[in-house]
């Protein structure tokens, strides 16, 4: 358990506090409007006087505003990207001002389906408007303006976070200098959509789900936990799973037919599932996975080449060789469209056995590339 001393010595931003920003109204891509809307966000480091060192971190499906540091002295775990955000880390809080906010539709402090609908006094549930990646950006943009930042040094994210970064570069080219898009895609594959749908069905088939109106009764924990288990399989690679768990069993007893968890990999998935229901809302899971599925730059702009015609940012695009959920070729098509448009882009396909979730682990090649890219981009804009 970290005390003040360990927090200070672990290259951590230390104790942090989630902040909340409320604005009057947001019109969603669907045309529906909603308000007031609150977004949870955290910041680390200091905004410099030129206001040119701000980086927005966009989180993935299950992320939150709590990207780094600890909320209390007794927290067992640091923020979700603490390995990458902090003094001396790739998103160096001694140099940069880091912002991370919980997406709209989320359940970690931002307005979402579990929030109270002021019209009814009850949780929105499925009354909440359909959320798209574009809506997430439009909401976050208001925080950036609220903080007095006109142009971000960078917007960075993995997976769904990468989608937000790409869309931001397309929609608001003047407001960002660079993009770090990790293990992402311009449109999720049919396989990815299929797996998301199985997760959603797990939730919707839980008798506790009750068409999303479960906030005053038991939540569909079994369904959400199953959805998370499926998700977790997709985040890892076959090889990594084999190395981590192999076929190891806790106990093997053929005389029993109770189908209790015997294999290590089974209990690992169950643990991930049960942990998740404590911090995540099932309806948010439905909304956010759907936002990922709907994301399609090719459809929105006719083709990928057209999508990137107007972007002004410089790009660092990174894929992982063992990522089968967001495979390398999906990053390559983004890069090739950028290249054909004459944009400045770096692409690297990082060798790893850790699958899609590589961006969340302590991985030196990833750290090094982010560090060097940001350093150069910051030098470049400091000369402007």
């Amino acid at each position, binding site marked *: 358990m970290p005390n003040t001393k360990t927090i200070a010595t672990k290259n951590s931003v230390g104790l942090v506090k989630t902040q909340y920003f409320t604005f009057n109204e947001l019109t969603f891509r669907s045309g529906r409007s909603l308000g007031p809307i609150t977004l949870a966000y955290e910041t680390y480091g200091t905004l410099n006087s030129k206001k040119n060192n701000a980086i927005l971190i966009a989180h993935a499906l299950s992320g939150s505003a709590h990207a780094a540091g600890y909320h209390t002295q007794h927290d067992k775990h640091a923020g979700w990207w603490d390995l990458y955000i902090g003094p001396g880390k790739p998103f160096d809080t001694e140099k940069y001002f880091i912002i991370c906010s919980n997406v709209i539709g989320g359940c970690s402090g931002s307005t979402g389906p579990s929030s109270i609908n002021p019209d009814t006094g009850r949780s929105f549930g499925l009354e909440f408007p359909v959320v798209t990646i574009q809506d997430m950006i439009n909401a976050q943009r208001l925080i950036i303006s609220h903080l007095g930042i006109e142009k971000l040094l960078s917007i960075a994210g993995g997976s769904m976070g990468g989608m937000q970064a790409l869309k931001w570069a397309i929609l608001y080219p003047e407001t960002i200098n660079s993009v770090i898009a990790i293990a992402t895609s311009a449109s999720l594959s049919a396989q990815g959509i299929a797996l998301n749908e199985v997760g959603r069905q797990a939730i919707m088939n839980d008798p506790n789900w009750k068409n999303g109106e479960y906030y005053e009764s038991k939540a569909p924990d079994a369904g959400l936990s199953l959805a998370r288990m499926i998700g977790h399989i997709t985040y890892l690679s076959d090889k990594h799973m084999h190395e981590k768990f192999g076929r190891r069993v806790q106990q093997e007893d053929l005389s029993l037919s109770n189908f209790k968890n015997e294999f290590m990999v089974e209990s690992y998935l169950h643990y991930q599932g049960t942990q998740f229901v404590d911090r995540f809302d099932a309806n948010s899971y439905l909304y956010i996975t759907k936002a990922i599925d709907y994301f399609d730059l090719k459809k929105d702009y006719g083709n990928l080449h057209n999508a990137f015609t107007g972007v002004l940012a410089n790009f660092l695009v990174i894929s992982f060789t063992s990522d089968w959920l967001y495979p390398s070729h999906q990053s*390559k098509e983004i*890069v090739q*469209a950028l*290249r*054909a448009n004459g944009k400045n882009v*770096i692409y690297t*396909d*990082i*060798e790893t056995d850790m699958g899609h979730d590589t961006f969340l682990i302590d991985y030196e090649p990833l750290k090094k590339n982010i560090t060097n*890219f940001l350093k150069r981009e910051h030098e470049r804009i400091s000369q402007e």
Partner: protein
Amino acid sequence: MKLPEHLGYDLITPEITAGSKVLDLGCGDGALLEELRDMRQVTPFGVEISEDGVGKCVEKGLYCYQGDIDEGLSDYKENSFDYTILNQTLQITKRPSYVIQEMMRISRYAIVSFPNFGYIKTRYQLLANGKMPKNILLPYEWYETPNIHLLTIKDFQIFCRKNRYPIKKELHFSLSAKGKSRAIGMFPNILAQYGFFILDGELYSKIIL
């Protein structure tokens, strides 16, 4: 035996017009692009197969694509670059003919340099020893060489004639003991260790029109 580092840079750099846009195919750690950026103020782009090489390019602030040289060249529009460079890489490309054709299309000038298999020492090793040549130009055993399309200066001249690629300049060279490039004017196909060509892509686009 190791290939000398920065091979032929001293010949390439003076050929590049200041402020131009350059694509280095097989840019390695980006040393040539860095030199061109610092000495010629070019806008540099690279393609490199190794993750390590791309990582070093990022460190130098160069925009680089990790992949095969011939990958994605077709994405570029005509004359997207002032120069494309294929320095000591032609012989390891899978589709050399396609790569040169794309270089001619996407850049005004294509700079191509390669180890000359017609070099006298190489010829001699094959003739006298009956073994695959192994020397400073070709430092690999036959079973581990990345060189899959070896050629001579004469081969490349014939190749250009056949494809109607206008040669703007030929600057075949050998290395001095100190590693400096020394131009070989006489009998280059025998006496030069390396072939060096600048092809005129701009003129080529006019010819084929």
